[in-house]
């Protein structure tokens, strides 16, 4: 009996204590909504992602959205920052896609470890505008027959109503839509997206319940898996170029060519792996990677940074040698010709927003150097043609010596008269080992030189020989020079925000442009609460017919809500 007690005590010692465990039975619901179900190649698909939890708000996390073929071949992907369980974005549908079904799916770095890594998936249909249709294999025939009857009734929700002043509108007429939640509804708040798209019974429709593969993960599992970690992870392995052997216990610097200091470091582990977390960056960022020995910060040569891809890029699975029976016809609902006309007139309705990109790494910006011993602005002195003269004439305690083709920097510690060789040199925020490359930069090219003559500690790094930072007037140094110690990598960061611009026919400015918008309106950020109705306005296009206003969202309990209404344009 005593032994049993001892076993139990030991067991409890080993058990990880987590506040997520216990009676927490709440779950996180994941879902993906799109502005349409069918697209023409070259279109932009807009989508909204949900990851809502009842018990407490989902923290910030990074999610990956990719477009894959039916065979799960990766086509393209975007990275989004999900805040409070909500994110929205867009994905361009390439013209190279053949007509057929595709999937949009999303996942996070952490959910990749789950048995089912995709938090939600949605099938979309793409019609190639140049007539490149998907082959129908013999084995596909059964599935093809099943797809023919998939019309779906309108979705009603007695607790959420979409209202318009009338049901029939003229072309280019303003439509005002109200969205309200009934007092009797079981939920108080609804986060949703709204879309206005052509309605046609012949459209291949994808019922949200059957075609959307949405996950529900318990809150305990969510916290256990730490699924809400923010930031884009840049993970890779450091290897020697010649032997491909891993480099253990080295330090990898990640820096940016910029006018402010953006720096991170990572120690490689026993597998030679390094890892960086980047937050707040958008678009494609050029990052500079270099490796050093940690204790003396001597640069490592002939090493290679093998960066791991963030997206789940499946291996292309070729169809087996199956017989092609025919090619799938373009049976999508909307008019491909009109979509092509729209593209021909380049009446694109979206614009990228210029967001600030460098609001992270403030820590390195503020504290990397500590107290600078000298800050020099060479332009305030006499004009000097090169760095040799600048060091000699302007920089106190810095000396540049040339030995053959090699250059060498020294710092004379003004307090103790110790001469330190090879201080760490950064040019426009990037470490430079071949100091002779700065030789021809004169006062016209150098804006500022910061010197720290004393040793400096940044985390687990000791810059024993001091630090010199050179900032250019125009950060073109790294465009003109390359270092054999540095590898440049284009890192895909968060998708830049896009704003939609819809025609405003109250003004006469766009009178002559044809308007065959496939989606009349899309808004991914509609929040409706009890007593706080929402409203939207849009103009109808030149397209006549029936349009469907669809509101899809999730309530605070993580339950999906869908409601729609038809309007006619004559």
């Amino acid at each position: 009996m005593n032994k049993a007690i001892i076993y139990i005590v030991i067991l409890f010692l080993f058990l990880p204590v987590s506040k997520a465990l216990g009676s927490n039975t709440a779950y996180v619901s994941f879902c993906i909504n799109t502005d349409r179900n069918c697209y023409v190649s070259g279109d932009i698909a807009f989508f909204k992602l949900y990851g809502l939890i009842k018990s407490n708000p989902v923290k910030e996390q990074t999610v990956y959205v990719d477009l894959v073929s039916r065979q799960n071949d990766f086509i393209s992907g975007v990275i989004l920052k999900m805040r409070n369980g909500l994110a929205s974005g867009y994905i361009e549908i390439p013209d190279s896609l053949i007509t057929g079904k595709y999937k949009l799916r999303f996942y996070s770095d952490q959910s990749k470890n789950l048995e089912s890594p995709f938090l939600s998936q949605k099938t979309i249909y793409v019609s190639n505008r140049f007539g490149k249709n998907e082959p129908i294999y013999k084995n596909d025939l059964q599935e093809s027959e099943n797809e023919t009857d998939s019309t779906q009734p309108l979705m009603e929700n007695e607790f959420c109503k979409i209202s318009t002043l009338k049901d029939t509108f003229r072309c280019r007429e303003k439509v005002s839509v109200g969205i309200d939640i009934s007092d009797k509804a079981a939920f108080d708040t609804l986060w949703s997206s709204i879309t206005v798209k052509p309605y046609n019974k012949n459209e291949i429709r994808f019922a949200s319940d059957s075609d959307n593969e949405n996950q529900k993960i318990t809150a305990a599992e969510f916290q256990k898996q730490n699924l809400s970690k923010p930031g884009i992870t840049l993970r890779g392995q450091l290897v020697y170029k010649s032997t491909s052997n891993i480099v253990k216990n080295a330090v990898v610097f990640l820096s940016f060519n910029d006018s402010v200091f953006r720096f991170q470091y990572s120690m490689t582990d026993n597998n030679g792996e390094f890892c960086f977390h980047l937050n707040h960056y958008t678009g494609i960022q050029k990052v500079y990677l270099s490796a050093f020995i940690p204790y003396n910060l001597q640069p490592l040569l002939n090493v290679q940074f093998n960066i791991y891809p963030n997206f789940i890029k499946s291996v292309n699975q070729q169809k087996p040698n199956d017989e092609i029976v025919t090619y799938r016809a373009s049976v999508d609902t909307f008019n491909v010709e009109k979509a092509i006309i729209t593209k021909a007139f380049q009446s694109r309705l979206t614009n990228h927003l210029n967001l600030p990109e460098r609001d992270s790494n403030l820590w390195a910006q503020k504290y990397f150097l500590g107290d600078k011993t000298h800050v020099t602005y060479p332009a305030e002195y006499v004009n000097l043609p090169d760095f040799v003269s600048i060091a000699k004439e302007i920089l106190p305690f810095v000396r540049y010596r040339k030995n053959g083709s090699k250059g060498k920097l020294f710092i004379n510690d003004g307090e103790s008269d110790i001469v330190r060789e090879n201080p760490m040199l950064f040019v426009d925020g990037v470490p430079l080992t071949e100091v002779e490359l700065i030789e021809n930069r004169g006062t016209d090219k150098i804006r500022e030189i910061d010197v720290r003559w004393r040793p400096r500690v940044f985390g687990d790094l000791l810059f024993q020989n001091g630090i010199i930072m050179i900032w250019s007037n125009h950060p073109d140094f790294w465009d003109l020079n390359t270092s054999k110690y540095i590898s440049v990598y284009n890192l895909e960061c968060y998708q830049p925000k896009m704003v939609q611009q819809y025609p405003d026919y109250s003004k006469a400015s766009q009178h002559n442009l044809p308007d065959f918008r496939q989606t009349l309106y899309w808004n991914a950020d509609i929040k409706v609460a009890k007593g706080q109705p929402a409203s939207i306005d849009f103009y109808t296009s030149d397209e006549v017919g029936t349009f469907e206003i669809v509101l899809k969202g999730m309530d605070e309990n993580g339950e999906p809500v869908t409601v729609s209404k038809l309007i006619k344009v004559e």
Partner: protein
Amino acid sequence: MMTYLYKKIQFLLFALLLSFAALAQINCTEEYHNQQLTGDVYDPYFNDYNGSPFFLNTTFIGSVKLSSGEIYKDLKLSYDLYKDDFVYFNEALHGWILIDKDIITEVSLVDDKNRHYKIIRDPLKQATGNDQFYFELFTGKVTLLMRKEVHINPALDNSLTDNKMGSFFEKTNYYFIYNNEIFMVPATKKKLIAYFPELKKDIKKYMAVNKIHLKDKDHLKALFEKISSLL
């Protein structure tokens, strides 16, 4: 036979549960993270003086909270009262590092007798340039702080026989924060009451009954707890 079987089942069950627990721990492993404590290599200047500039002349296991909100736990720390700075032992660099003062907002220390100390910087949280560390003794409507300082008593020429340039000595002062202002605890009861005129009678009575001494840490803690409860 039954006992043997029971023991065997018991052991197998235990082994199974233990393996689950171990797996759960593997899943919970944090991703590697590089620490961002910044500072300078610590210069052991104190060897030139008699005595010690360190709080309780010892090292503590403690945590440091940075202005970024990040908390570093289980650090080997010492509080240099002369420089009013914290030093920590960096395992990777095998050396003592003087932590940049302006990155710290709070330090927690635990000594070998399991006594806890909370030390804060800029107690008014106004970034007013008040770069001094204070021990937080009590927080309430009135917050009681303690500040320990070490100064150097320079050696006279004739005492330089031990090659020491002087000796350290320690001073302790108490402060309180009231209405978002910081005041030194005065030496006399009368001056203290002047800060709380509406509590004059209560403070007088409390101090008389409990024989409060204004230089005693525990007495001050009790007194300011009382004042906070009365406000």
